């Protein structure tokens, strides 16, 4: 009985133990909730936001490029991109395998793309196939149920002219690289952003890119969009009016293609430095880049011996040959060493510093003055002037005319042109300059080496009487409110030359085309074309003999520099033809461009390029009989 009463007392105690124990548990749970909901609220709030809110970027169309007359050159089209949304993925391997199977893309490539974007939020679409074909799209949509994580998006994509026209000028676009992402000017861009990677696309990328839009949506747990919270439409990039004239560009490219040459041409308006045409051939198709270039095409472009990616106009450096005589003539006249009437006797060569230097006419030109020396391209005359000047004064005038540095054109990766000097040689080799070397320099050989662009600037400067403009590509910008003309860059120098110098040069250069000179193929009946041919040796004559038969094309390059009309020049430029043996063959291309310009100006039908019979020259034989010493 005592034990029973003991039990009677024990029950309330045990109930009390239970209820206080439980109350303690509740307090502990209350603290746990306080910790999660109050102390850690910020963190979980953010996680909840990330759960159901998505901000998807809407790619802005890049600005349209127009030619100087308002013709559309580069625009945008809407392409279909196939993207992967990893958030929806259950089996990545299976998805990639299927996509590879259906689209024909390499599975390894897809895997690489996914790996590259691994650190991005899982809801952000990763583009697997850019610019998919309709067949690929329909193949994918047929198996949509098996591929809930595959998304087909419409995105604005760059569209360039289909015939590779002006490819180097436009450049191309591509996904931003990791190195580019780290640069301050690219803040705000992310992996996958499309930026200009070359040409105008690169230089004016900031203007052309526009601002990507964004769309905020609420999604549920399976990623389905429930409603849109807000949408910021993308702002199209600025529209640019280029200085290019589509018809002149086309005329120049047609000229090259019809005559079967690779090379480069730069046509300027000598009054302003505006670039009317810029050719570099062979070219590439920028459309391949716009759609995400595949590795095979990229490798092919990079390993091609013809180097189609190189913009020869600003990245190719060649010996100017006889076109450099213009510089020597200018220097001699401006330095006051000679007058245009100064005569030199050419006996087919001359001895300087103990060595005999040939003229290309072995019989000699006899007595020639400045005008005739230019017309006939007499080497002896310019050997003599060069010897009088010395290399440093030649360098000075080369530099003043734009042949010793960059032209400053608004294109990326331009290289320096070069006219040697004693200081240059000292810095480069540590050796002193030998006066004998100057003799070769005087006819544009030796170390003289220039880009087509710099030679075009030189020619424009001669044409306009001494103002060295900076060549440029943009005339006006439209930021959506109308066209605002772009102020041209300030000229590097003005009134370089005396009028007598200019007159003498103009006469001589006119005679090259219209007299007994080498530029006859550039002659046009009713337009006073002035010009000068030149030959850029690929390899010295001795080297040529030593090399014998090789794969490399060792034939000389040809130059034709020109301006027209002689007294009030509206066009100036250079045509550079690779392995044409002679500048003679560059002249018809220039002629075609000039004729196109005037036909357009006069409202006449545009001329069609009449391809002269492509000279079937064999390496080592000259198409023009009298030729020696390199110059003509």
């Amino acid at each position, binding site marked *: 009985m005592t*034990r029973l009463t003991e039990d009677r007392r024990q029950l309330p105690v045990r109930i009390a133990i239970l209820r206080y124990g439980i109350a303690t548990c509740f307090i502990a749970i209350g603290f746990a909730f306080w910790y999660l*909901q109050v102390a*850690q609220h910020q963190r979980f709030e953010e996680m909840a936001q990330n759960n159901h809110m998505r901000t998807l970027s809407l790619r802005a169309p890049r600005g349209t490029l127009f030619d100087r007359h308002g013709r559309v050159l580069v625009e945008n089209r809407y392409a279909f991109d196939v993207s992967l949304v990893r958030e929806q993925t259950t089996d990545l391997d299976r998805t990639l395998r299927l996509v590879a199977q259906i689209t024909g893309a390499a599975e390894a490539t897809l895997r690489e793309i996914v790996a590259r974007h691994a650190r991005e939020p899982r809801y952000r679409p990763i583009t697997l196939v850019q610019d998919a074909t309709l067949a690929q799209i329909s193949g994918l949509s047929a198996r949509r149920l098996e591929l809930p994580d595959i998304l087909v998006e419409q995105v604005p994509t760059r569209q360039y002219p289909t015939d590779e026209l002006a490819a180097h000028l436009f450049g191309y676009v591509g996904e931003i690289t990791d190195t580019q992402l780290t640069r301050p000017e690219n803040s705000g861009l992310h992996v996958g952003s499309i930026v200009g990677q070359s040409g105008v696309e690169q230089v004016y990328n900031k203007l052309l890119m526009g601002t990507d839009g964004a769309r905020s949506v609420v999604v549920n747990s399976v990623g389905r969009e429930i409603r849109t919270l807000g949408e910021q439409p993308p702002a199209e990039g600025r529209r640019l009016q280029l200085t290019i004239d589509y018809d002149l560009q086309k005329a120049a490219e047609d000229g090259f293609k019809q005559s079967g040459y690779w090379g480069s041409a730069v046509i300027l308006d000598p009054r302003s430095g505006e670039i009317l045409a810029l050719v570099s051939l062979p070219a590439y198709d920028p459309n391949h880049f716009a759609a995400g270039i595949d590795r095979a095409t990229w490798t092919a472009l990079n390993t091609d011996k013809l180097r189609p990616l190189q913009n020869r106009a600003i990245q190719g450096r060649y010996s100017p040959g006889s076109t450099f005589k213009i510089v020597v003539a200018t220097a001699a006249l401006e330095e006051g060493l000679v007058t245009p009437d100064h005569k030199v006797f050419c006996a087919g060569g001359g001895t300087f510093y103990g060595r005999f230097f040939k003229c290309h006419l072995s019989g000699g030109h006899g007595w020639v003055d400045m005008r005739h020396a230019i017309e006939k391209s007499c080497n002896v005359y310019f050997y003599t002037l060069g010897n009088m000047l010395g290399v440093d004064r030649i360098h000075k005038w080369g530099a003043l005319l734009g042949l010793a540095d960059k032209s400053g054109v608004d294109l990326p990766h331009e290289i320096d042109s070069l006219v040697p000097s004693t200081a240059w040689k000292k810095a480069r080799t540590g050796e002193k300059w030998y006066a004998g070397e100057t003799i070769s320099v005087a006819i544009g050989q030796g170390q003289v080496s220039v880009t087509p662009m710099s030679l075009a600037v030189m020619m424009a400067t001669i044409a306009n009487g001494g103002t060295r403009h900076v060549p440029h590509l943009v005339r006006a910008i439209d930021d959506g409110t109308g066209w605002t003309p772009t102020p041209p860059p300030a000229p590097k120098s003005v009134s370089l030359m005396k009028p007598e110098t200019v007159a003498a040069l103009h006469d001589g250069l006119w005679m090259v085309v219209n007299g007994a000179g080498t530029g006859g193929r550039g002659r046009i009946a009713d337009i006073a074309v002035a010009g000068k041919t030149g030959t850029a040796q690929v390899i010295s004559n001795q080297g040529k003999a030593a090399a014998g038969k090789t794969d490399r094309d060792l034939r000389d390059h040809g130059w034709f520099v020109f301006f027209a009309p002689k007294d009030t020049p509206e066009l100036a430029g250079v045509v550079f033809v690779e392995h044409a043996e002679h500048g003679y063959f560059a002249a018809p291309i220039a002629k075609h461009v000039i004729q196109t310009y005037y036909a357009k100006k006069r409202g006449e039908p545009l001329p069609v390029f009449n391809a002269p019979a492509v000279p079937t020259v064999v390496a080592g034989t000259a198409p023009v009989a009298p030729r020696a010493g390199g110059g003509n």
Partner: protein
Amino acid sequence: MFERRLYLHIDWLLLTAVLLLAGIGLAMIYSTTYDPVRERVGAEFMKQLYAVGIGVVALAICMSIDYRTLAEYSLVIYGAVALALLFVLFFGFSAGGSRRWIDLGPMNVQPSEFAKIALALVLATFFAESRRAASNTGDLLFASGFLVVLAGLIAKEPDLGTAVTLVSILLGIAFAAGLRLKIIAALVALAIVTAPAAWSFALKDYQKSRIQTFLDPEQDARGAGYQQIQARITVGSGGLTGKGFRQGTQGQYKFLPVAHNDFVYSVLAEEHGFLGVLLTLGLYLVVIQRSFDAARLAKDRLGAYLVVGLVSWFTFQVLYNVTMSAGLAPVKGLTLPLMSYGGSSIIATLASFGLVLNVRMRRFTN
């Protein structure tokens, strides 16, 4: 048996708290199952509303019949429930990989919910009739027999959560009945010793993975750990005052699965914040404490043990579910009594509180 003056002794505070919780539960089920597209109340809400109605009737009935009379029939009730569970195993209606329901046309009945009442009744009767002052090992083993039959049948469904809940009833009653601390210590030791064996043999793979996931949810953030991470985000993002009724994003956009059922408390925490949590936790605490009062005041040991048995399973489930709702316990299909969606659960729970009220209001009768 039907004396009018009994009703003067009804614990109105307890009854109010119970009905308030059921009402809050209904509101949360409304919130989580409302179809915003068709602007329609979810079918689950209507079902739950009917179940609450039936539950109130069940509560009234369980309150009216003297618990001592019920105790006399405890073995019959126990046997009936055991048969029903057996029936479920063979002819039951299955969903979500387990066979738990008997299909009765308009609604399904889940006998395991009623097994809790049956077990509490039979164990309370057993310990109350025991001649010994304090229960000994023999009593415990005998009582365990009652437990093992029901828990075994339920575990077989499988429904491990409810089976474990039944264990809490035995432990609660046995503790109240004076189970020696030595035995409790021995049981704890036994549990620890057998845990590795249970891990290897008794637990199914999905059960193991749930526990592993609990220990490291990030390891499987898209799979089993998902619910736990989402539960924490749901609760944590609620903040002090919550996002507002039907304004939760985690529950509304289905980031949290079975929001109206196992995770209804997470949604409450999301939509009504820490203040809502304090209010409901307080109500639960009131219900539990008032029930213990009923046990303390009970006229006899039978009444006291019965109440303790009922409060045991109730408290166990509340504590477990609330902890799990905050992502602080492994995910287990245990409902939150009074609030989670589930007809049988709400009916059985209300019936249980009918019995608690029953014991208290008869504390002066002979």
